[in-house]
């Protein structure tokens, strides 16, 4: 019997949740025995597989590319996990929301820019008018708050899911941290 598959996704976030995931240290070996990590910013696979059992999503949905990406991933994932405050609440990326897209771009690229200040019009995906938590865009099955969620909480969630149980976060993590 083939092992369950595991993917991790990095949207609008700082990669802190991925770092916290790596903080499970040597237990990643045990994890690798129970599941195959098939897609992740840290491994060299460019296309999301046809079907993945568990996908951890770090980050909020802040631009058009990420919006399309999370739709695609949802369709190809059995259990989608919102990992960390950006995915769960919008958190820091969503702090631009009260100000609107244009003032944000002006602030970042014109006021703070030097040499040839300009707002990018190509390659960089267009920003959505609001940064949204993942569950406001697609259905999410498990929520793991925390900025970042501690390594033990992430390991606990994965272990429970791999055993076929839905994890209860309880005291293991909280908003902020």
């Amino acid at each position: 019997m083939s092992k369950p598959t595991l993917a991790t996704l990095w949207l609008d976030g700082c990669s802190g949740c991925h770092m916290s995931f790596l903080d499970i240290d040597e237990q990643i070996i045990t994890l690798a025995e129970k599941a195959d990590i098939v897609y992740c910013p840290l491994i060299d696979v460019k296309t999301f597989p046809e079907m993945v059992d568990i996908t951890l999503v770090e980050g909020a949905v802040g631009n058009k590319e990420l919006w399309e990406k999370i739709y695609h991933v949802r369709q190809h994932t059995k259990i989608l996990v919102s990992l960390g405050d950006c995915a769960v609440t919008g958190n820091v990326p969503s702090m631009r929301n009260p100000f609107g897209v244009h003032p944000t771009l002006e602030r970042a690229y014109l006021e703070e820019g030097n040499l040839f200040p300009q707002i990018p019009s190509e390659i960089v995906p267009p920003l959505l008018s609001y940064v949204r938590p993942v569950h406001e865009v697609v259905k999410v099955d498990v929520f793991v708050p925390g900025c970042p969620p501690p390594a033990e909480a992430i390991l606990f969630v994965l272990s429970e899911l791999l055993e076929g149980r839905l994890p209860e976060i309880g005291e293991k993590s909280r908003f902020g941290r």
Partner: protein
Amino acid sequence: MTIQSQIKTLKIDGRDVGARADETILEVARENNIFIPTLCNVDGLTPIGACRMCLVEIKGSNRLLPACVTHVQEGMEVITNSERLLTYRRLILELIFSERNHNCAVCVSNGHCELQALAQKIGMTHVHFPYLFPHLKVDASNLRFVIDHNRCILCTRCVRVCDEIEGAHTWDVMGRGIDARVITDLNQEWGTSETCTSCSKCVHICPTGALFEKGKSVTEMAKRQQFLAYLTLMRSKKS
């Protein structure tokens, strides 16, 4: 009236408990180590039933009642932890989170916040409602303190402590519903207030990071609320 008739007996979650006639359900529950969550309530200030976290069921009434302002009655049967109550409490908490910008990760009170702690305690892992992301002001005009409306939950502890304990009544509430805000004096910058004594009672009684001391960074604003119990005790001795 005899002393006897001033003692009421009632049931909370099936347990027989005794109480003085002037006690609220919340007070009796706490005396008996029965947990009822609260946000706006704080010992030493007049309870107002604003946050609705302490709603309880009372047998014979189809309305939910706030335990902090509902007095005990003889033979009352109170339920504090039904499935319905737990759901409502979680929804109320989610509405509070969705209404303003509570970014715990970058908040001065991260780790010391009653709102954050309560979310964890009652198992609120996410908010079902769309976040409103309102554009709210931060008033840093006071020399020592800041009011950040993004974190305010309108518990009005600041209003009550300023009025009832400090006697200055610098704080008040303006506007209704979603537009309600705590204000200083006649809705002017805090730094221009003529009534504020800069006593910091409001800052330390605030359950979230809405009121904080200048110079405090993320996670640094731990509140010291002991003053209220101390003042209440000393003043009761005097009289």
